[in-house]
């Protein structure tokens, strides 16, 4: 038995209203099960982060979305680590009480979980997060001072030795919008998610370091009819613990500095480690059926990686695989997707498990 590790990529894009994984870390149960039927699971913060709740998976790699796109394109590799010192960036736009809540949450992860954190940095300007919803219904967002965010992250890297960056940005409070009402009832699109992704993407793209984000918000009034899928975000003062846990063991990115998107392992990384993971080692990827139009899925599909799409996980997107020329194993549920992964890993043809198995046909020779 000398087979390569069976490596699965699980993607549930954030901010697109995914029925499973569009709320408060509610795709984490999927990741927990998948991690049992593969050797390595590569997934991203939206799947793993449940605010105060988290579940470390020994064989899971926590990869921020921009890094995941670069990995899938073959531009960056992933280097597993035992531990990252995590640096914390706090938005200067945060009130003193909120800042203290987050510092106490960070200290709690040091004392109770044994995480390694560096000193922290407050940005030299308020980041000024703006939330937006696009024509498709997806949420996006921007910050007015990306330069201030990057200066703070660079300070943590160069002055404090941080190997991963957790960002806490002050998000606009919302106590009564229709979008928030739907979100708290397990419907609609996470109004914060798109802006969160932009913040972490900016740091990962600019500094090539693991990064994840937690929004700082004032607590909401108690909601008696809160959806279980949204509940993890309403059991504490911060969303930070899951971010720090994920980043503490997030893989580092490897590749040639300033490599172009076409740079692959053969030309882009002269000092590779045997533990480095590249896109060419991915065995399968799982994505919502309606959301095949992201960079990572397009790259992996082009590379011939088997793609499993889940129709039950509805999203606001309308990018099904066949419209993009992607052949997939289309299943209804994640339960079935787990079965397909187990089947592929076992080296069994998926069609052999169905009742209808057509006889072989003769191919014609090329003229």
């Amino acid at each position: 038995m000398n087979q390569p590790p069976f490596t699965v990529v699980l993607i549930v894009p954030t901010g697109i209203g995914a029925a499973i994984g569009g709320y408060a870390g509610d795709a984490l149960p999927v990741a927990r099960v998948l991690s049992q039927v593969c050797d390595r699971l590569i997934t991203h913060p939206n799947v793993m982060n449940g605010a105060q709740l988290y579940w470390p998976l020994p064989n899971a790699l926590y990869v921020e979305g921009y890094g995941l796109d670069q990995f899938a394109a073959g531009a960056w590799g992933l280097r597993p680590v035992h531990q990252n010192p995590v640096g914390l960036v706090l938005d200067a736009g945060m009130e003193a009480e909120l800042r203290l809540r987050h510092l106490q949450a960070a200290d709690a992860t040091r004392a109770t979980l044994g995480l390694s954190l560096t000193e922290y940095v407050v940005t030299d300007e308020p980041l000024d997060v703006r939330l937006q919803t696009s024509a498709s219904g997806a949420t996006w967002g921007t910050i007015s001072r990306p330069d201030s965010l990057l200066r703070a992250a660079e300070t943590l890297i160069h002055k404090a030795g941080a190997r991963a960056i957790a960002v806490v940005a002050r998000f606009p409070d919302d106590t009564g919008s229709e979008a928030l009402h739907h979100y708290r009832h397990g419907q609609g699109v996470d109004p914060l998610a798109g802006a969160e992704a932009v913040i972490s993407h900016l740091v990962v793209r600019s500094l090539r370091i693991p990064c994840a984000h937690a929004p700082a918000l004032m607590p909401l009034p108690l909601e008696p009819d809160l959806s279980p899928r949204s509940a993890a975000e309403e059991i504490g003062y911060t969303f930070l613990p899951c971010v720090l846990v994920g980043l503490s063991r997030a893989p580092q990115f490897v590749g040639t500095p300033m490599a172009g998107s076409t740079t692959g392992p053969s030309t882009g990384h002269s000092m590779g480690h045997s533990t480095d993971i590249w896109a060419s080692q991915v065995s399968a990827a799982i994505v919502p059926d309606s959301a095949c139009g992201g960079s990572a899925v397009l790259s992996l599909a082009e590379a011939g990686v088997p793609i499993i799409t889940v129709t039950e996980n509805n999203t606001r997107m309308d990018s099904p695989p066949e419209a993009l020329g992607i052949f997939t194993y289309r299943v209804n549920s994640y339960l079935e997707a787990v079965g397909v992964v187990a089947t592929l890993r076992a080296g069994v043809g998926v069609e052999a498990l169905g009742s209808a198995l057509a006889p072989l046909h003769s191919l014609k020779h090329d003229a």
Partner: protein
Amino acid sequence: MSTHSDDHEGLNSMPIQLVTVQLVAVEVAVQSSPGKTRTLVLQSLQSFGEPLRWAITGIDRDRQIAHVEAVVLQDVPFPVERVVSV
């Protein structure tokens, strides 16, 4: 950890390019393979800035057109008011 804050005053001269973040929407023709479509999306977005996060949010099957939403980075003089358009 919580008792000290690293002072990064004076680091404005650090070699960090000043950028703005902008939300844009484009349309591209669906190509014969997913990789070619991805390449065309990236090329189309380059005219607005460097793509930071993007997705094909919908596809017009009749016209074979992909609708793309993206957040791009744009280099600008400092300081500047951010412009947002979809």
